[in-house]
């Protein structure tokens, strides 16, 4: 109700746009040649991607040994990156599905980009479980396919199998949702294009959209259903990812708080990444009218909430360890805070606990530059959160004789950079070829025909 009230008080889109102007503004980005900035960014991203590809190729040719892992720390950057990217992907689903169902109409400016980000992030995430395998060419053995190997089957007790299904489902639904949501805009582009290959492709992708009342009705229904389908995934995916750790016997992993803690963290980090990217896009693509302080306010508040949940979870973990009387658990947490990886732990705490608290202040929330910087901190902090959980728990577990140190190899660092390269490359391609803002939806919040908008 409150948001309804806000909606009436303040326009979601600034600059007194007409639907035609919206189309022109958004499609302008797709017309003509890309700018020098775009090229520079694209080349940089593609170089990172190339670096990552070389690193992964080298690793697959040579063996997992080219990473810094050891007999004690069996996962580090690989699964850290995986969980990080899966978390990034969360904001997309949240914005597109959950906020849609809750009628948070401010989402219209950011949902397209957020959904695209989800898909790209899940693609980045998907690489890591694949390449972290010793024999990735047998990755299909994770799939319960009909085989000629007699009783050999997958192990349904293994969280990695659950993971496989969770991520596959998530990716499929997210992709479908993104695509379906894009159909009206694809039709708009189709209609603007001169006959040719591009128009043919767009015609195909637009699925014969004709903008009729019936088409819109079908579209809205499907979109609603998909949103309903995707909503539980917001909870399920990261819950299942957290089970990779929670079902183990390793102190620091074996804890029941992980599912809500991971979900909150995922939303937190996802929002941060959406903001990071959208603030860049806003500036470079001149979308100031579409991404406003109101968006900033809503998203930073969501970050304040989820960030505080994450901070609470950190505290609760310590409390649980202290209260449990389990000496191994207690040691693990003392070791996190004061052991060899204390620097990583305090990086995480500074970024994830202190940063969101600044969002209590309206002046901070509405300052684009400060918000941008803070989201970078949150991105860093959330990467370190996963690193801390994985590495500090493993490196000193039960038997002191098997305690070991960990430091990443160059190949591991290159792979992490490569995943950013992939993500940014895809995102840059996305802003070139697909309307970065959902025109069809934005037009719906312009206020035209409501009498309460600002267009009068």
């Amino acid at each position: 109700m409150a948001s309804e009230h806000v909606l009436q008080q303040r326009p979601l889109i600034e600059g007194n746009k007409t639907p035609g102007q919206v189309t022109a503004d958004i499609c302008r980005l797709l017309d003509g040649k890309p700018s020098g900035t775009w090229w520079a960014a694209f080349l940089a991203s593609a170089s990172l991607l190339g670096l990552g590809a070389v690193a992964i190729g080298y690793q697959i040719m040579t063996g997992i040994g080219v990473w810094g892992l050891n007999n004690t720390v069996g996962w580090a950057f690989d699964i850290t990156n995986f969980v990080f990217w899966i978390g990034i992907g969360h904001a997309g689903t949240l914005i597109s599905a959950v906020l849609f169902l809750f009628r948070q109409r401010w989402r219209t400016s950011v949902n397209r980009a957020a959904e695209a980000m989800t898909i790209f992030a899940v693609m980045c995430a998907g690489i890591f479980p694949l390449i972290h395998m010793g024999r990735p060419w047998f990755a299909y053995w994770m799939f319960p396919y009909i085989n000629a190997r007699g009783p050999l089957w997958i192990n349904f007790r293994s969280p990695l199998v659950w993971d496989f299904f969770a991520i596959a489902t998530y990716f499929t639904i997210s992709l479908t949702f993104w695509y379906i949501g894009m159909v009206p805009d694809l039709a708009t582009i189709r209609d603007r294009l001169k006959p040719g290959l591009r128009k043919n492709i767009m015609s195909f992708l637009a699925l014969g959209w004709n903008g009729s009342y019936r088409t819109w009705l079908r579209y809205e229904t499907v979109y609603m259903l998909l949103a309903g389908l995707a909503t539980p995934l917001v909870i399920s995916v990261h819950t299942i990812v957290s089970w990779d750790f929670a079902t183990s016997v390793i102190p620091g992993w074996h804890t029941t708080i992980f599912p809500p803690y991971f979900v909150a963290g995922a939303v937190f980090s996802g929002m941060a990444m959406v903001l990071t990217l959208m603030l860049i896009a806003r500036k470079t693509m001149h979308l100031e009218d579409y991404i406003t302080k109101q968006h900033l306010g809503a998203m930073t508040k969501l970050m304040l909430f989820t960030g505080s949940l994450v901070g609470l979870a950190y505290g609760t973990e310590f409390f649980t360890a202290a209260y449990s009387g389990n000496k191994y658990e207690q040691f693990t947490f003392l070791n996190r805070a004061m052991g060899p990886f204390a620097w990583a732990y305090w990086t995480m705490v500074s970024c994830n606990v202190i940063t969101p608290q600044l969002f209590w202040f309206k002046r901070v929330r509405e300052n684009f530059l400060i918000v941008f910087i803070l989201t970078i901190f949150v991105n860093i902090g959330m990467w370190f959160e996963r690193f801390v959980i994985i590495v500090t728990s493993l490196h000193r577990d039960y038997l002191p004789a098997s305690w070991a140190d960990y430091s990443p190899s160059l190949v591991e660092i290159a792979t992490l950079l490569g995943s950013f390269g992939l993500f940014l490359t895809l995102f840059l391609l996305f802003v070139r070829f697909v309307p970065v803002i959902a025109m069809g939806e934005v037009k719906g919040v312009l206020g035209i025909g409501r009498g309460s908008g600002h267009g009068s």
Partner: protein
Amino acid sequence: MSNKPASKPDGWGQRLPELPDGGAGAPLQKDLLNGVSRRHFMQATGFAFIGTMMLGCTAVSEEEALPYLEQPEGVIAGRSDLYATTCGGCSAGCGMLARSRDGRPVKLEGNPDHPLSHGGLCAVGQASLLGLYDSHRLRAPVMDGKASDWASVDVALGDRLRQLRSASGRVAWLGAPITSPNKRARVEEFLATFDNGRLVEASANSQMPIAEAHGLTHGVATVPRYHFDRAQVIVSVDADFLGTWISPVEFTAAWSSRRRGDALENGFSEHVQFESRMSVTGTKADLRLRIAPGERAAVLNQLVRHLSQHAHRSLRQIQDRPLTSVDDAQIAAIAARLWEHRDQALVVCGADDLAAQTLCNAANELLGAYGKCLDLAQPAHHAGSSETELSLLLDEIAAGRIDALFVDGLNPVLDLPAGAALAQRLDAMQLVVSFSPYEDETSAHADFICPDHHYLESWSDNDNITGLMSYTQPIVAPMGATRQLEESLSMWTTGAVVPVRDQVLASSGGDVRRFDKLLHDGFEMRDVRQNAGNFRPDGVHAASDPDASGLQLVLYSKVAIPSSAHAFNPWLHELPDPVTKSVWDNYASLSPATAERLSLQDGDVVRVALGQDAAVEVPVLIQPGQHDSAVAVALGYGSVLSRRFEGVGPGWIERKPTVGSDGLVGASATAVLAFEGGRRKFAGRSVTVEATGARRELARTQDYHSLDVPPHLAPEGGERRPNVQETTVAALMDPHFGEHAIEHHDGGNMWPVDHPYEGHHWGMVIDLTLCTGCSACVTSCQVENNVPVVGKDEVRRNREMHWLRIDRYFVDRDPATAGGDRSNGTGNGDVDVSHQPMMCHHCDNAPCETVCPVLATVHSDEGLNQQVYNRCVGTRYCMNNCPYKVRRFNWFEYAHEDEHENLAMNPDVTIRSRGIMEKCSFCAQRIQEAKIVARQQRRPVADGDIRMACQQSCAAQAISFGDMNDPESAVARARDSRRHFQVLAEIGVQPSVGYTSLVRNRPTDHEGPQHG
């Protein structure tokens, strides 16, 4: 079926039920005969078509597998045979059984019947197998630097020998101590053909003074046989008798017989160790007292002084020379304990110092130990000549007074002081003949290299101990055109090769039937006794003043690399040192306080210098429990034989080499070994230690060395990890021991017990009291299970592949007063050491099994946790979830290119490819073999039929393995022990491996040896 075994039949030997109409294929056949319907035609053609296609799909590489034209008698392909022989790894001469598969030895095991080793075999013995298959071994004689053949060598060498004989040339034989009567006869015959032939036998370590001291005090220059099994109180002054001293396997077996915590009625010995560095033996001592190297003689002096007061016998050489490191009252108390048990007391000394050795003899004499705990009537034969003879020979060589030198079993240029000068003299000599199987530092200067056989290709007799003759028989035909030394000598002495088998046969008495029996048994006992001499008080040397000042050098031999002769062996280089857990290097061990004083860290390269010129540069290793004055450096490193390891280990962009900048593994510490008064002084010389500024990272298999967690991270009550449990003999005397002490807080099991293990349920129990950490099991496991060598860099990255590791923990005896920086768990004070072998625990609720997505690790109905290599995709989740961290991942494709070395592989165990997980399998192949044998003999598998590779090699018999379902089995009895506990039982994984607690024979208040 009347003699059907009582246990559950497991499939073999059961007949399949007969099918009616002649088997499963019959219905189709019948139909076809009755007239072919279209449907059946299609079935048949479809079947045939698919069958043909399937054949095309199968990737069958063409290999020729030809059967024997004539099956050799007794050889069954795929079945291994055991041959008794004698270990040639060192001069101890342990009895061994060589396991031969399809004509090649693949595993060496201790001979359980052998009176010295009782079935144990040390790591060096285990690893000596690789020497046989070493592709760098010389395959033909070398003449003047070029490969040659025996006929040419015999002609050319014959001419040179004739010249020497006619010119009365001075000929010397410098070799390792000869323990074979036949070989000694050949050598003496050969040297007798010269007017001036002399024989000097020298060991590369510091054992020779023992014999010299007995020459002084008893008139018989020999090494006595020590009977640690008869000793109730053992005092060792710097003798690492469980690790490297004289005959460690024999001594470990004997020592362990009096250290059985479940049979206290047999006596539980008290063991006091005085030492400056931390040795394997020191880690097992009930009371370990740190002394400076320069105080060794003084300790014995004080001991003898107190003993002589008890015995009311005075020795004029003995004056009061109190030590600074140890309170004299403590030595008096130890002497009192010795005196109290004087029928069962033994003092041993490993010092190079002649005075210390004579004082040791005096102590044993006062205790009446001769004839009881040590025996001069049946002495050992591996002492060699005296230090004096050695230094005289070297002096004569240096003076150019030796014309011809024969070198056997030694590498004097590397192993003896002033090697570079010696090398120059060798070049100037008329004739130098080496029998080395390698082109090493010495043989490179030889005119002729006449490579001897590997001992597994040899015939020999060995009387390492008087009264025991052990035989060596070839297990395989010679790999190359080498010739056994005895045959070469017979050629050069008589002009014709007398086959060495005939020589040994003749030496054994000449009876072929009897000889066959001897070879089958591997040894025979003979009633031979020698004159034991009488004690001569005048022979005791006075001790010099104790010196605990400054930094004093200790040169020692490592358990893994006892001498440079083993420097070729990658298994031994990669075997973690039992105390330091370091591999692939030697280093200067310093105490934590000394390192702190000199501002040195682990891995800082220091220059350990003896005066101006002599110095060695090695990295620092900080060793808790070492005396502050000691700087300990291992000998045997820096050999050219290690040059081959330049490329060892997987290659990748961040790879660092295993060898140093000089291309060698470690640095040769003989640079700082020198003669002093005609004797090699291994320990006690003043040295300076200076940082060079360089660093050389040490590769250690253990990064954290204490059971105590770092104090600043310790939760209250969680300061010490409970995975090693300790007790004392005094506590065990309490009949209520163990009733309340060890609680398994399992927390109840939430799962139904649906795996009843109705047949076998394999389990293992390891006695921590008996485990000395000697690491024979580690190498045995490596050989048995084809575990790859990964190189120094990979070990440094904690990626060693050993399936079995031995966790070694230091614990401050008194954390409150330990002082120093305890952030690594230990301070500067005295430490207690524990060794804990750690391998897959085959948990009944295995955490690894549930998390594998592809079911690559599964549980057998006999309780084994089985790793299915070809199913594994390598997620490493199992490794992370293993609370014992015993799983090993193939980070790379490890090298198996050396076709010769590959012959040492066990054909029963798969070679693992990269990207998959592996771990201890409880030697599944051995379980299977024992089951097959039992089935063939139509009997159930009996307890003791199955011996794990680790268990087999253990000299202390610390490991028991068997069926936990059989209440009479050794393992079931061990699990019933009051001392039994399981590591991490509290997390509910229900391991199949248990431990019995570490018993120390000391009062519970940690003060002094006096109790009871």
